[in-house]
Every structure is written in C-alpha cells, then in structure tokens.
C-alpha cells in the first residue's frame, strides 16, 4: 500500500491584526498547499467583538477576514483546491460565513462553507454560577456572572472533522483551541480516530501549536532575530504533516527569516505550562518525548509526540468589563531628562487628583530608556539625556480617564523644555475587559456544524 502523502498546512494569520495580504502571499508562494489556517482569536478578543456587535448586530467577527476572502476568491474561482480553516467566526460564525459567501458568490466561486458554533456557554455560566470558579485564583464566579459579556468554550477538532468529511472547502468556527485548526484536517486526511489516536493527534497538536502564531516559528521574535536574512519578508510557516503525526516545519522558498531548531524550540515553549501535560481538547500532549532533527535548509522535523486522552472538560474563556484606560507617550530630551519625566508624571497625576479629589484607580508613569521597562530587574539609568515618558491610567469611571487623557499633551507648553514627540492630540480612551478562565464539563457543550453553499 503506498504511503499516504504528507498534508501541507500553512498558517498566514497569527493574530487579529496580522498582515491581511499574508494569506494570498502564502497561497501563491506555496502552490502545493493543501490547507490554510488563520487564527484571529486571543484571550480577550471576544470581548472586543461583543462591543463591536452591540454597535453593529450583523458583526461580531474580525472584518479583516472579509478582505482575506476577497483576496483569495480569484484562486478558488480559477479552480485552486485549497481548504481554509479559521476561527474568524468569532462571536458570530453564521454572520461571518454569510458575508464571506456573498463575496465568493460575486467572484464566481462554487464552494461549500461549514459553520462550527456551539462554543458560546454564557447562559451556562449565568445559570450555574456556583460551578465556574476562576482557574487561576479559585475565586467563585458568584455575582460576577451578571457582568460577563462573553463566555466561550475552546472546542476541539471533532466538529471541524465532521465539516471536512462533508466536503467543506471553508470551515469558519467560533472559539476552538488554536491547534485544533491543524489537527482536524490532518485527522481527516489520514483517517485518524479523534477519540483514540492520541499519539498522532498529539503530533498534529504540536504542529498546530508551532504554526498558530505565524511568523513566530520562522524567525519572528527569535533571540537571534538580528541575524535573520531578509527580515522584511519573513515567510509564513508550513507544517508538512505525516501519517504518524510527525511533521516538518518549513516556509516557502525565496522568503526571509529562518526555520532552524533554535526558532522551533523557542516556539515549542511559547506560552505553555507543564511540558509533560500540554492540555488541548484533542489530546493531552507530552513535549518530553519530542525529537528534533534538521531536514534540509529551513526544514526541521519534529517527531515523537506522545498523547493521552484529553480531560473531560473544555477550557472556557469568559470576559467582563473592568473599566476604562488610556495611555500616551511624550519624548523628553535634555539634561535631567529622567527627573523631568518623573515630575511630568506627578503633574498629570496631580491634575486628576485636583479634579476628582482622588487618584485614578491605577496610574503608571514609565521613563522608557531609563530602565523602567524592567524596573527593579535590569539597571536603572538616571543620567540619560532623553527618555520616552509613557503615562497610563485605568479607572472604573470613564470621565476620570477622559480627563487624564486630556492632561498629557498640554505638557508640551507647560512641561519642561525639550518636551516633544507627541503624535495624537488626545490618546484614545478604551474600555478594558478582564479575563475569567474556567472549565466546563464536555457534556454541557454541544458543537453545531451547519453548511452554506456558495
């Protein structure tokens, strides 16, 4: 029996805000790509989408994604077979899919879109508030339940597998675990059983973990970044996944950056806890059995992942509003720049106190360049002749932060000589959301898969 060929899965969006032209670039640079994954959702992204949906009920998903669909449509219209798996659905996968379908129809594409939802568990948290303690602090949810704006379970690969088995070309999900975007197409391609092939699922989970942050595995944010070739054109990553779940991480030829064991090891360790128990909804993975080897230029092979059954719970990311914040910077140049910067911070703080008879709940003045970025850890320098003064404040009261935001630029005429470098007349006042991680029993969550024909 001939071996099943590897599956080429690329990632061209590591976060909401990544370059919107990257997916088309990667698809063009790698014409043999089988699957493109795009990851849009960070821990508190859902709360931003919730506020967006309050203003525009048809939204609730990152609109950048529609530009990506528009850019890829000509490929599909001319017969390119490329699966797209993305969590761009955010809080509104159906709305996202409808908007994408309209664009694709107009472009003359004939495609099947699958919609994965069922991750919204807000009602569960509200109805059984005694059950959902904070995973980090063990605090009870209690009355905070009334303030929650979002609560989404991280679904696994299973509903995406169902979608792909029903010949979906595009899968648009709400919240799913990031690596599951990669695990699902691999499980379908190789015929893995998503409830028992734990070593293979573990291997694909590692592949997904490595590519989910885009350029971070191809040289981006590496310790040795300064020696990267062509840093202006770092390639987006591709995982060539094999039938045993092992993979080769690489990038398209002709792109900048570097895929070597250094970059792969750094990304393996990125945002993980216990490496013997990397928990995903598809498998609990041990990184302690992984073996890395070079496989040619810009190719690193990762094998040996071991997996066991995932826990009987899904992780839930819930958010609630926690006040308002603003931050701004000024540049201060001249003798005693650090002392001047510190005094300016006190001036702004004083002005807020005089106006409201109290301080903002949180206030921070950092003299960047004088060591404040790692205050108390790396050396302080009080003798520099220029600093960037960064002022930030947070408060439950919006008016307090609006007032704070208006007190910064006046330092250009009232502060020390040499105060410059202001770009915005007033910094933007933004609502902030706090994060409530918790767990929910799997049987409380019912993933839903629907289809939309273009």
């Amino acid at each position, binding site marked *: 029996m001939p071996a099943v060929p590897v599956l080429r899965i690329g990632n061209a969006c590591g976060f909401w805000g990544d370059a919107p032209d990257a997916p088309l670039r990667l698809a063009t640079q790698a014409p043999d790509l089988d699957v493109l994954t795009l990851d849009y959702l960070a821990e508190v992204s859902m709360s931003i989408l919730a506020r967006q949906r309050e203003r525009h009920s048809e939204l609730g998903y990152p609109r950048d994604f529609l530009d990506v669909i528009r850019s890829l449509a000509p490929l599909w219209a001319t017969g390119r077979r490329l699966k797209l798996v993305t969590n761009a659905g955010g809080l509104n996968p159906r709305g996202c899919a409808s908007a994408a379908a309209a664009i694709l129809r107009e472009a003359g594409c004939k495609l099947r879109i699958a919609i994965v939802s069922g991750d919204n568990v807000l009602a569960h948290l509200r109805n059984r508030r005694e059950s959902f303690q904070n995973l980090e602090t063990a605090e009870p949810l209690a009355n905070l339940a009334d303030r929650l704006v979002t609560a989404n379970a991280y679904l696994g690969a299973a509903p995406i597998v169902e979608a792909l088995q029903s010949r979906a070309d595009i899968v648009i999900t709400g919240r799913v675990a990031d690596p599951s975007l990669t695990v699902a197409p691999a499980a379908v391609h190789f015929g893995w059983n998503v409830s028992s092939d734990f070593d293979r699922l573990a291997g694909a989970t590692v592949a997904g973990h490595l590519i989910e942050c885009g350029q971070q595995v191809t040289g981006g944010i590496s310790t040795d970044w300064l020696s990267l070739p062509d840093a202006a054109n770092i390639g987006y990553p591709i995982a060539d996944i094999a039938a045993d779940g092992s993979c080769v991480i690489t990038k398209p030829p002709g792109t900048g950056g570097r895929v070597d064991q250094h970059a792969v*090891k750094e990304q393996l360790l990125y945002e993980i806890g216990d490496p013997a128990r990397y928990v995903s909804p598809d498998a609990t993975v041990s990184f302690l059995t992984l073996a890395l080897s070079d496989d040619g230029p810009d190719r690193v092979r990762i094998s040996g992942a071991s997996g066991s059954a995932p826990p009987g719970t899904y992780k839930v990311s819930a958010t609630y509003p926690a006040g308002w914040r603003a931050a701004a910077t000024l540049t201060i140049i001249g003798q005693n720049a650090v002392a001047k910067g510190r005094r300016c911070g006190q001036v702004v703080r004083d002005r807020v106190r005089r106006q409201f008879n109290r301080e903002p709940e949180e206030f921070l003045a950092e003299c960047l360049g004088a060591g404040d970025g790692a205050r108390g850890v790396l050396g302080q320098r009080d003798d520099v002749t220029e600093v960037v003064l960064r002022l930030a404040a947070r408060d439950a009261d919006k008016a307090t932060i609006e007032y704070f935001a208006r007190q910064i630029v006046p330092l250009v005429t009232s502060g020390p000589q040499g105060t410059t470098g202001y770009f915005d007349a007033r910094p933007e006042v933004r609502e902030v959301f706090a*994060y409530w991680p918790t767990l929910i029993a799997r049987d409380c969550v019912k993933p839903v898969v629907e289809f939309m024909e273009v």
Partner: protein
Amino acid sequence: LTRVRIRLGDIAHARSGDKGSAANIGVIARSAAAYAYLERVLTPDAVAAFFSNLKSEISDSKSLPVTRYALANLLAFNFVLPTALAPGGSLSLRSDAQGKALGQILLEVPLEAPNDLCGAGFHPHE
C-alpha cells in the same frame, strides 16, 4: 578551574509570553554542557531572586513563585511565573503587559561559569 563572568544570553536563548496572569519563559541551552551547568545554577529560586523586584503594579504580593520544568530532550527549561502578570494582560498598565520581554530580561542574568563552557557552546551572535 577558571571561571568567567558571563550573561545567561551567552550560553542560552529564550522566549516568553503570557497565559492569563501567568508568564512563562522558555530558556534553551546552546550546548549540552551549558544545559548541565544551567540545571545546577538556574534554579527556580535563582530566577525568583532575579525577578524579585518585578511586581505587578497592583499586586502587593511580595513573593514571586517560580516553577521550573526541565525538557532534557530539547536542552531546555520552562519557567512558569503564575502571578508575574497579575492582574492579567488586558488590565495591566505596564508597557510589557504580556511578558513578551521577560525572556530578553532573563538572558541578562549574570553567571559565573566554568571557562570551558564558553567554548563550543559560546555563541555570541553580535
């Protein structure tokens, strides 16, 4: 045996990030000898001591718990600091609210290393 003053970054590379209020820092030795040395000296207590002044802006907790996980297969350690970023990336006012720079900061840890460590594994890129 002669010893030389080096920075952790001379024999290791790193990457850091956040998960809620926790920060983690992956530290990867550039040689097997460096890994064996770091296993002895880069203890959780040493890392906690180095970061002891780095407190969140609102948490008044004086201690900074640190857990070290060893990945001998990768010549690496993962340090988890469960409270380092309290009250969490979205609330913290710090420039580095998400702990992205903690790896670079840790690479500045001064070490007294055996001279021979800085042979094959010595890897100053600049």
